[in-house]
């Protein structure tokens, strides 16, 4: 399989014994930078290599990048087609900012917990790290993920997994359960909501049902073994597993307990879901089950008929993925895919299915089922429930068309 817009292992393997010193011819869609092959010795066994370094770097042949769509650069998308397994490298985790990325000194930053508590408390980052901690591997997805293809903007077919659904990523998050801090502050049993507030220029705020705090909300300071990246909320953020990403407020400075929601701008005028009956869902926090084939996908080109592995990710904000089914005949028949370990709740789950491509046209699609029995819907079913210009939560089935020449194009859904 060839991947014109990224330099993949497969292409390097395809170069085989010929070595990789020669410059590849530019392919449509490549920029000159990508076409220029890094220079390496013809035979690495005949020369000493460079020695140990303080901070490693990717192979010069691997250049995965986030991309921003639109002019504002208020978000960037994870290159899902360049990733294996389920963990997203921290520097490729998707971004969504409401007031840019603040620069914060961890020695002076504090987190205040107040409102309906016995003891309003202030914690430094060192304080937070003293509490009994916890690490969890969980995904985060932006509620707007997939909106571009749901609204069928231009019926584009030259779209990568990144461009379609790149606002989802997975990390190992480390921190202190919010429940621990609520007990420390003596949360009132009458508190039903909490406000989370960030220290960015938007002073981003969301109200969350306090049940989430007692369940699995995390005050996170670590991501994939290192401190949070600045764009992920350094030095501390809220992390709400399974919940739309914007509610996991970054650069967290304040939590206030209350007996009602605060009705902030984001949770009223923005992150609400208009419905065809003239209402809009408010606090529609949970992300429903979804899946996406990441290989083969645009702009791959299958080099010939034979065995290929269909690969992708599936996830649900409501629990574990229980099965993923794959169709290679435009939804007529379905075959259950194999799920890689680990299958974790509220987390990307890697699926695989060997597929013998006979060489003709084929429409391939994936369909996720989660432990609540929810099955990823078709576009028509979601459209009927939500309307064509609803604002968020776009988890309908995605499809790719493999053409007779091996090229792969985005084919909307089923």
């Amino acid at each position, binding site marked *: 399989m060839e991947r014109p817009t990224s330099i993949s292992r497969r292409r390097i393997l395809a170069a085989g014994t010929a070595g990789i010193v020669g410059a590849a011819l530019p392919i449509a869609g490549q920029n000159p930078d990508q076409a220029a092959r890094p220079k390496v010795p013809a035979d690495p066994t005949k020369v000493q290599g460079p020695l140990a370094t303080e901070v490693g770097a990717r192979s010069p042949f691997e250049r995965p990048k986030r991309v921003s769509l639109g002019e504002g650069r208020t978000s960037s998308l994870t290159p899902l087609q360049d990733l294996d397994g389920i963990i997203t490298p921290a520097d490729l985790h998707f971004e969504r900012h409401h007031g840019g990325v603040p620069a914060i000194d961890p020695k002076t930053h504090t987190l*205040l917990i107040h409102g309906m508590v016995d003891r309003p408390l202030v914690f430094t980052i060192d304080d937070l790290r003293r509490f009994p901690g916890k690490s969890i591997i969980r995904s985060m997805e932006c509620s707007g993920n997939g909106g571009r293809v749901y609204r069928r903007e231009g019926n584009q077919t030259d779209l990568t997994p990144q461009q379609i659904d790149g606002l989802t990523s997975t990390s190992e998050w480390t921190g202190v359960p919010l429940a621990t801090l609520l007990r420390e502050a003596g949360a009132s049993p009458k508190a039903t*909501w909490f406000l989370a507030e960030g220290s960015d220029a938007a002073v981003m705020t969301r109200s969350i*049902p306090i049940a989430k705090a007692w369940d699995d909300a995390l005050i996170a300071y670590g991501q994939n073994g290192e401190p949070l990246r600045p764009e992920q909320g350094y030095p501390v953020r809220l992390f709400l597993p399974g919940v739309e990403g914007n509610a996991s407020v970054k650069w967290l400075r304040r939590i*206030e307990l209350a007996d009602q929601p605060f*009705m902030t*701008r984001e949770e009223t005028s923005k992150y609400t879901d*208009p419905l065809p009956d003239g*209402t809009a869902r408010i606090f529609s926090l949970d992300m429903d089950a979804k899946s996406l084939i990441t290989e083969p996908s645009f702009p791959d080109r299958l080099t010939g008929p034979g065995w290929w592995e269909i690969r992708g990710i599936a996830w649900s904000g409501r629990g574990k993925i229980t099965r993923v089914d794959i169709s290679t005949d435009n939804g007529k028949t379905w075959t259950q895919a194999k799920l890689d370990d680990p299958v974790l709740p509220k987390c990307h789950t890697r699926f695989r299915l060997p597929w013998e491509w006979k060489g003709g046209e084929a429409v391939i699609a994936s369909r996720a089922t989660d432990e609540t029995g929810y099955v990823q819907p078709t576009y028509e079913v979601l459209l009927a429930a939500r309307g064509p*210009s609803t604002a968020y939560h776009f988890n309908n089935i995605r499809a790719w068309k493999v053409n007779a020449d091996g090229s792969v194009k985005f084919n909307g859904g089923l």
Partner: protein
Amino acid sequence: MDSQGHRRLRYILLVLGAIALAYSVSVIAQSPSSRPLGIGRVATTEEIAKIDIDVRPDGAGLPEGKGTFADGAKVYAAKCQSCHGANGQGGSAARLVDRESGKNWDFATNAKLVKTVGNYWPYATTLFDYTNRAMPFMQPGTLTADETYSLTAYILALNKIIPEDAVMDRTTLPKVVMPSRDRFVIDNRKGGKVVK
């Protein structure tokens, strides 16, 4: 807000509270009741007040001060119009004024509609809260309470939600009933077989 409006707001908040509570009861019951670990320090009243800037629909958190449409027009021209356009009609930043389009609330089926304060925002207090915390975009958090009340009055009056001579303050603002307040419904998705 009239007394019926107050009852409606109370009802909505009660329902939201009941849902949050029902969701939580079983989990709370499992929480271990351990003594505090003694980590962190008690916050002073002063340091809480310094960053406790949120404003709720019931008016809790609104500061002293007041403002009117006329004052707001001046502040708007100086600090907001370059992005939000004349009369709140939009520019490089969001359109703020338009009560007419979308009055049938066909946002889910009409892709041309633009959500504004007038046709979509459910609570007037949100306008004060957000303007105070995050505006103007390039000088966030620099408006005085009077300026924020004035801008709130200006945008609400342009949307024909309050009269131009209305004075907005901590008493009057929470009583403003927004046209779309009763359009918002609790999320009824719960997983399972049915796609909602």
